[in-house]
């Protein structure tokens, strides 16, 4: 499996085997081979370059030996060391990881259970229930953020608890917006399940629990792993909802980066961001690997 997804490579390799030039005669290209027309390649290539250039320069300039983020002055790791020695940043990072792990475990379990309920049972009001489950996905983030702020303020959720209990309100909010996504992913996986296998297991005397553990769970697993990785990145990346739920002593990584960006644009932020981008990309690759053939995301 090639690890390089850069569009340049894609375009080059695609044209390479035939050793043809871009000015080749039009008759070489079939009427519907739009993707092989040079203007289409140029446009798509330019758009992908624009999509990636900001992120790649951000990552490159985290190694730049200059405070001014614009001219290349030589390679250095000093901003990584600086970021590592920034206690506030490291604490925020630890908070983010803690929240992401707990929220991933909870939302994966809850989301998978919801998915199984929707996959297995017929019950009155099912369409409404499904719509209700999709609400956190469609509601604007800022609305959900202020709702969490109001909720925890109104019920007087204790603040100033010892770590990690002080992260509980953020974790609860993260589970609330993550598990519907897990449910969607797991349910998409379950549509491919042959129910005769389940019936066969039961005919052969397996109990409800044995059937689940030995037949349904192994099939469900790739969907669960993909859902869990999605929940993990959602939690790690969330800024808006956390911004309203976090207090002065419960700062997460994105909230910390936000406050740093508000002050100034420094290579230290670039270094911290690069670390997060790398973590996210690795998680994404695993998610893609585990994911069953993805159906179109039109919905």
């Amino acid at each position, binding site marked *: 499996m090639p690890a390089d997804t850069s569009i340049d490579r894609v375009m080059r390799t695609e044209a390479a085997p035939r050793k043809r030039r871009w000015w080749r005669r039009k008759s070489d290209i079939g009427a519907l081979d739009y993707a092989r027309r040079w203007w289409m390649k140029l446009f798509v290539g330019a758009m992908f370059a624009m999509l990636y250039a900001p992120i790649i320069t951000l990552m490159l300039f985290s190694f730049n030996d200059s405070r001014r983020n614009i001219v290349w002055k030589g390679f250095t790791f000093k901003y990584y060391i600086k970021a590592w020695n920034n206690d506030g940043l490291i604490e925020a990072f630890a908070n983010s990881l803690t929240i992401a792990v707990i929220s991933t475990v909870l939302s994966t379990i809850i989301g998978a259970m919801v998915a199984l309920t929707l996959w297995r049972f017929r019950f009155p009001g099912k369409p409404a229930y499904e719509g209700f489950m999709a609400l956190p996905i469609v509601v*604007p983030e800022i609305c959900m953020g202020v*709702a969490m702020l109001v909720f925890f303020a109104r019920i007087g959720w204790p603040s100033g608890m010892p770590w990690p209990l002080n992260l509980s309100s953020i974790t609860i909010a993260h589970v609330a917006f993550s598990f519907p996504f897990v449910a969607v992913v797991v349910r998409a996986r379950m549509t491919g399940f042959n129910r005769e296998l389940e019936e066969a297991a039961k005919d052969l005397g397996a109990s409800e629990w044995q059937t689940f553990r030995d037949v349904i769970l192994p099939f469900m697993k790739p969907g669960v792993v993909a859902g869990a990785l999605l929940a993990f990145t959602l939690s790690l990346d969330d800024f808006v909802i956390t911004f309203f739920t976090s207090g002065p002593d419960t700062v997460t990584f994105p909230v910390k980066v936000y406050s740093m960006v508000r002050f100034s644009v420094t290579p230290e932020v670039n270094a911290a961001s690069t670390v997060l981008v790398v973590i996210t990309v690795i998680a994404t690759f695993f998610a893609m690997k585990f994911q069953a053939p993805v159906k179109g995301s039109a919905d």
Partner: protein
Amino acid sequence: MESWKTNRFVFWVMSLPGTFWLLVFFLVPMSLVWIMSFGEKTGILTIDITWTLENYIRSTETVYLEIIWKSVWVSALATIACLLIAYPIAFAISFAPNRWKPWLLLAVILPFWINLLIRTYALIAVFRTRGFVNFSLEWLWDGANSILNFVGLGQFQLLGERFEALPLLYNNGAVIAGIVYVFMPFMVLPLYANIEKLDKSYLEASLDLGASHVRTFWSIVVPLTMPGIISGIILVFIPALGSFLIPDLLGGTNAQMIGNVIERQFKAANDWPFGSALSFLLMYATFGALALRAVLSREGGGMNA
């Protein structure tokens, strides 16, 4: 699929955690905001629920109407720009050789997984006065000037006395560019799903019968992929309308959107009832857009059938 009555125990055990979580930690908070939007601020920390409509009436004041209106047209412009850029991309992917399709799709989706804050921050470095765009422009300006000097036109200073950096950051243009940049995958994916489903023999038939590529595109491709276009528009427009971070970081004080006003009511201005009313107006707009999509896609489905 079996009825829930066949195994009530399993049904309840499996559905309870999700239902509980969503009720207590989503529906209750939302209801609290809804109730608060009919409240009145009586002190610094006290809010009385008087079921007044004052907060909603206040949101029709000119200042707020202007911001709401601006949020709508900024989001609309960004959505249109997204559509114009995403359509050729989706088109190219769906006509690309099969072995490249998954990688091209991954290349579209990958930025979507990267932290929104980091992507927005990356744009600051591109747009600011001493950013990459201005830096490249200055480089071009220097180059052009030295050519002019070389051909002996240097003394006329045709390009101005010195390079002036363009103010690219902290205006509506920056916010629109940010929204397009961030929400592009939402537009490409539904378009791709629809173009991919398109029966390519229709295009061949149209071309065989003498229609030009342009005519084929407008008369065949666009009408048949309309459901994807509508989905994409809604999927970009809704989060764009509610965006807070992008106008906050790229727009500064000059280019605030409704999300920023809501945030200010809950943080700096400390007027929760008014902020609640505004955030429910945003929710109603979202549900309106979703309902519109449902209606349009039903009509589209009827047309195809």
